[in-house]
């Protein structure tokens, strides 16, 4: 029984759900719920991105591009193509998946810094497209998003969106953990450590990189769509370089190759600026200093460091 609880897929998911309920009950006002929703949406992206970066070892500095495309899918599709708002996120996810699939092979042939550059370039191209095609996207100022309706009911309250975000995050984590503990997950981790040994064992390395890339892109797109529907407004910044970097920082901060670590990374990096605003103009200096300090002293990330500390206490 306790072994069953210690499994990430069971115990971890239960713990995550418990934390979600606790936050809902403890949140003193809607502001905290709003931050929690932002965290949840970022965490969805990070969970997928972690599969790509942490498990498969393939860096991407452009995933905000997919997030942005998803966000604009739920804004643009209903207005310009008459797609119902409820279907738009899924249509967007399919389109983004297809797009990611088309670019994945040539991009993922690249290694290390070259891969970083290529993904960065792709993200920037998406950003420029969203910024400049203003007849569809409203340009740099962004555009309003039609509210989501389910059975004629308008879904706009924080409570509704908190529920939706929690369910979708739990689902993403469950699916991702499933992948990790399967032949697909083993192939991804193997190609991270030794691409050649994986190939020799019969792993079609290119194919598995594509799988991780497309999967993470589609999750990012879905989270982007949800964020647009939730806030009722989209701007190109969502697809920008800084957001891409933030997402990667969340992965590394929480702990590469740790799905729940990524969620912690998302929670810390999303809420930190909210709390740092009290430092007014010193905000950026403090954020930069915290980032450097965490990465220097806890270089494997927050969750692995916490788990190590717990283990040491249990041993002593």
């Amino acid at each position: 029984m306790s072994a069953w609880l210690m499994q990430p897929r069971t115990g971890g998911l239960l713990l995550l759900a418990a934390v979600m309920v606790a936050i809902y009950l403890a949140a003193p006002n809607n502001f905290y719920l709003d931050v929690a929703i932002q965290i949840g949406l970022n965490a969805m992206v990070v969970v997928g991105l972690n599969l790509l970066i942490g498990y498969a070892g393939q860096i991407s500095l452009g995933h905000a591009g997919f997030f942005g495309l998803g966000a604009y899918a739920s804004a643009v599709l209903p207005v310009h193509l008459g797609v119902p708002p409820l279907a738009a996120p899924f249509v967007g996810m399919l389109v983004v998946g297809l797009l990611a699939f088309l670019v994945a092979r040539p991009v993922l042939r690249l290694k290390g810094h070259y891969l970083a550059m290529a993904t960065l370039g792709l993200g920037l191209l998406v950003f420029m497209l969203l910024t400049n095609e203003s007849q569809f996207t409203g340009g740099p100022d962004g555009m309003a998003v039609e509210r989501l309706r389910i059975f004629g009911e308008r879904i706009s309250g924080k409570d509704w969106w908190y529920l939706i975000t929690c369910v979708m995050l739990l689902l993403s984590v469950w699916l991702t953990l499933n992948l990790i503990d399967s032949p697909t997950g083993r192939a991804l981790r193997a190609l991270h450590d030794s691409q050649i040994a994986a190939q020799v064992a019969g792993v079609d390395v290119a194919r598995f990189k594509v799988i991780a890339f497309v999967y993470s892109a589609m999750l990012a797109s879905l989270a982007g769509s949800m964020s647009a529907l939730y806030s009722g407004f989209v701007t190109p910044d969502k697809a920008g370089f800084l957001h891409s970097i933030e997402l990667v920082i969340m992965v590394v901060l929480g702990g590469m190759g740790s799905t729940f670590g990524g969620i912690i990374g998302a929670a810390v990096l999303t809420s930190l600026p909210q709390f740092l605003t009290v430092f007014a103009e010193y905000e950026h200096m403090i954020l930069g200093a915290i980032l450097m300090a965490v990465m220097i002293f806890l270089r494997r990330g927050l969750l692995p460091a916490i788990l190590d500390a717990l283990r040491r206490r249990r041993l002593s």
Partner: protein
Amino acid sequence: MSHLKVEGLSIDFGGLRAVDKLSFEIAPGTIHSIIGPNGAGKTTLFNLITGIYAPTEGRVLLDGEEVTGLPPHHLARRGMCRTFQNLQIFDRMTAAENVMLGRHLQETTGFFSHLFRLPAVVAENARTRERAVQLLDHVGLAEQADTPAGSLPYGALKRLEIARALAGEPKMLLLDEPAAGCNAVETQEIDALIQSVAEGGVTVVLVEHDMHLVMNISNHILVLDYGKKLAEGTAEQVRRNPDVVAAYLGQQADAEAAHA
């Protein structure tokens, strides 16, 4: 028909010819050793046969079919597997997971089954794990099944690589210095392991410096020097070949004399 046939195989690295117009054949179910001094091109030859390098010229035929330039994972599907001289271990995975990965091609469930963790995946994971633990037991690593591979000692990693290669149920197994860095007892264990693999009908191709091991178990030996074939034949024929004695064994004798 020969299991593997190499015809006029050559590769250049920026003007340097590492393997030079090499031709040989390997009969099924035999132990075939490739020896030669350091830099003779043995590992390069392995890399050519297993599709890691594309040859500058020449052909490789597996079961009579041309496979020149096919990527390693295609060759794996045709039953070819190998180990590496300077280990290629999945450091962040446990020993058992390393071997489980070796069964990649035996696993049949698809991506969507993995995503939703259908019962078939759970059953398959269990089967793969069971077979992996058996193989670990076979190479004497059952105790370390759940140890991260990165923290295992060198000798254990050598055997882990063999277990991983065997997990794929290869028809041809290429071993690159399996006994390097192993003590006498471990070498003997590897010796027995290789023989039992060959008795199971697997063709074994061996690159090895331990002459004792090579002479003991090989059905056929190919001697390389500067990327060229120096001699070929049974252990006895090779041992008596004056060129080999001059180029290789003599050299080793020198080295041993200098050592003593």
